[in-house]
């Protein structure tokens, strides 16, 4: 896998907290699943998700307390009220029902509601006027990423500077989607005919997995993306790359690949900056070699998978809008070499 591991990415996991979560929730179930690249909301890395994780633990412990109360009554009844000589009491303890069923819950709910409002206000606070802005457009089934004022696009990957709030403007080209990065920020739906806004903030560098959360058709399962949080200079370098022509081919193979791209069917749908290919049906491929995956999270981005994808995307991502490509067997390696060189 072509993914470059940020050292901070490896450190950022908090195994202890995660283990507490899993252990308290599920008893002694194995914790193996918490390893790996889990995009867990309980392992938050940005201001939005950190708030929600905090809220979750409050809600969780309150629930456990009330659950203990209910279980105590149930167990008490099951232990002490089933002997044959138990005398049935015919009282109507309305006060108990009202206090335990309505009074206590009301107090708890008022507190919880207040906490919820506080966090809703925090999530709703828009970033400052001069905060960086990224524009994301949902397509079936990939994410188009642009930056206002920059003439270029990428797909399924967006970069933000660490420690800053970034405004994200959300549109959809077709159906509803939902923009969700569990470790950074709760969801915002992409609504046809409207523009929605959310923001992202990461307190430490890393790659954070996001995924479409509103069912959007056949390949809803493969509509993932990554948010790359990096120090400001790297972010600016990304912006600069986004606005400049793609890397020129260096080897013969790459040159032949570029030719195949521009003259073949590829350019009918895809753009590569500086080559004259500027179609906007499919993702812009100017930096495709550096991306974390092919097909919005369908397969890892390596030569083998890329070749398979070009030959027939329908075996990798059935239902996707890219048809099988009639590329000659001898041209395919060139095309792969060219596309992989686009970083």
């Amino acid at each position, binding site marked *: 896998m072509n993914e470059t591991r940020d050292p901070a990415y490896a450190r950022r996991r908090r195994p202890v907290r995660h283990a507490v979560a899993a252990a308290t929730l*599920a008893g002694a179930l194995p914790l193996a699943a918490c390893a790996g690249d889990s995009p867990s909301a309980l392992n938050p890395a940005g201001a939005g998700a950190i708030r929600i994780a905090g809220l979750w633990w409050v809600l969780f412990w309150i629930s456990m307390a009330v659950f203990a109360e209910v279980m105590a009554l149930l167990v008490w009844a099951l232990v002490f009220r089933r002997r044959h000589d138990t005398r049935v009491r015919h009282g109507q303890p309305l006060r108990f029902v009202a206090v335990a069923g309505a009074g206590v819950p009301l107090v708890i709910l008022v507190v919880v*509601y207040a906490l919820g409002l506080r966090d*809703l206000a925090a999530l709703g606070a828009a970033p400052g006027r001069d905060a960086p802005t990224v524009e994301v457009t949902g397509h079936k089934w990939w994410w188009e990423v642009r930056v206002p004022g920059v003439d270029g696009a990428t797909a399924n990957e967006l970069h933000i500077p660490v420690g800053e709030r970034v405004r994200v403007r959300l549109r959809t080209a077709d159906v509803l989607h939902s923009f969700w990065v569990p470790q950074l920020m709760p969801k915002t739906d992409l609504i046809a005919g409207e523009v929605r806004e959310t923001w992202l903030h990461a307190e430490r560098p890393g790659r954070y997995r996001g995924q479409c959360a509103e069912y959007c058709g056949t390949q809803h399962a493969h509509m993932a993306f990554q948010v790359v949080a990096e120090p400001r200079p790297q972010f600016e370098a990304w912006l600069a790359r986004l606005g400049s022509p793609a890397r020129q081919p260096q080897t013969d193979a790459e040159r032949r690949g570029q030719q195949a791209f521009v003259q073949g069917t590829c350019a009918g749908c895809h753009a590569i900056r500086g080559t004259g290919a500027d179609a906007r049906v499919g993702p812009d491929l100017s930096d495709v070699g550096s991306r974390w995956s092919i097909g919005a999270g369908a397969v890892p981005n390596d030569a083998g998978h890329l070749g398979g994808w070009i030959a027939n995307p329908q075996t990798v991502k059935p239902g996707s809008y890219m048809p099988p490509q009639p590329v000659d067997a001898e041209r395919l390696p060139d095309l792969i070499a060219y596309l992989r060189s686009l970083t």
Partner: protein
Amino acid sequence: MSTTTAPAPGASQEDLARLDEHWGERPSIRSWFSTVDHKRIGRRYLVTASLFFVLAGISALAMRTQLARPESNLLSPQEYNQLFTMHGTAMIFLFSTPMLFGFGNYLVPLMIGSRDMAFPKLNALGYWVFLFAGLFMWASLPFGAAPNAGWFAYVPLTDDVNTPGLHMDVYALGLLFLGIATTAGSINFIVTALKLRAPGMSLNRVPLFVWAIVVTAFMVIFALPALNLDNAMLFLDRRFDTHFFDPDAAGNVLLWQHLFWIFGHPDVYIIVMPALGIVSAVLPAFTRRGVVGYVLVVLAIVSIAIISFGVWVHHMFATGLPHLSYSFFSAASTVITIPSGIQIFAWLATMVLGRLVVRVPLLFLIGFIVTFVLGGFTGAMFALTAFDQQVTDSYFVVAHFHYVLIGGAVFPILAAIYYWLPKITGRMYHEGLGRWAFALVFTGMQVTFFPMHLYGLFGMPRRVYTYRSEPGWDVWNLVSTIGSYVLAAGLLLVLIGVVHAIRRGRPAPPDPWGGDTLEWATDSPPKPYNFPVLPQVHSLHPTWDEASRASMGDDATADRTLTDGRRTLLTSELDGRRERVVEMPEASLQPLLLALALLVFFTALLFAWYPVALAALLAGAVTIAVWLWPPRRPEEELGVVS
């Protein structure tokens, strides 16, 4: 457990013979198609809804098998998407509500001491329409044309551009078709409970189950039109190029969501409410006392129904509506947990004060409390907009609503199956088999759905046909899949238990549990006329009170026996005062004919054979005209002056 003997007959042999003559149905093919007996119709509802449950359950097993490991190729995405849509749609529309309406159909007339529903022919129509609408929707699956955009079918994914083919036409037309059955059934329940209660059954003596059914029926009356309108507009947009949901032509995609959830949230309670009624009905027999706080529970039921119409936006917390409206709907959604809390603690108090008789129905009630309370906690969490935005549309919400719906509806339904099986079939079930079924169902349910909370929090979205291994969801998914097979085994054992009871069970006495409501004061299974003598009700627990029992025995009167004709009593809406005797309709083929006309109508719409649709509509209208045509009577009887 004490079993009571059959009530001393208050009607003579001669009376019984005449009742038999008027109400009895000789078994024949014609009678099978023309019956209007609420017990036969109720049984059919139960069997048909169970069949749809099995189909939807098999869909779920197929999905769980696909998700057992990452990147599985067992199902194509197209297949998976149809399966999850049909699973949700069928469980909500073709199983839960019809199953509970089946119990209502069978039990409401018995519990209120009547001989049938208020409109027996309409009742038959409701069943046939439900059956045909269910078959209409399921029939699309073998052709690969089943609905495939989720049970809430958001536009614009469901328009004719994004989902061509018949898929969503089947959805829209199927639900409109089914809506006729649900509306007819609801009106019938309301009128039955208002007018056909036995004399003396004033509102404060109405069993909690009947309260729950009636309040549910009211919710249907006021919630279902929003869904019907939504589906009608969807069908028009797809087929006739209207633009209700088209933002490029002054339409709006969120209109669909508002209308859908104005129906959809009350619908959650439409499903759960009758099940809570079952809990209140079953509990007295196994705690040997009435439910604590009858009035509080009734108030809780009514207030849930009212508040449930003001919470729909909490299904749209991630759509980016103004925060002010979110604060309001968040508050309403928070408040609605309180009436449920009252009911839970009323039941707990009942258990703590009574003497527990631990039989299978009680076990399922305990399973219900544990599961439903957990689902309630996550429900209260979803009321908080900020938290909702993080976990909605993830597996966390899948966990939540399965806790609420399996805990809140399926467990009570299973309790009801064991509890009323002796009444419905006249046979006792096998206790050991039932306990095993409970153990498997309860364990399977928790093992399947508890981990979903976790992998939802770990970032797994719902409705994905597969997932990759990197995010680390595989182990939990495997656990869920194993759990789902345990759950399926438990449900299979329930089925085996029912079949065993029907074929081998020992005969059931009229009142095997010492229940408190009127269905236990008549035979198991009841005669076609339900009660030889309609009771005079003296308390909330008529079967436990001597005077009410005696009214059907020693104190029987001719004006409650009503042997000359198919007759039952009307009483006043509030205090159950006797008003008059009414004639009930005979068996008829008209309901079946009308339902068939509707089936042709909707099928013709689906395939765009519009002239056929028009013809079917006219045939239906003629059937109704004949159905309601007044019989010719002498003018003196009518009271004509000139």
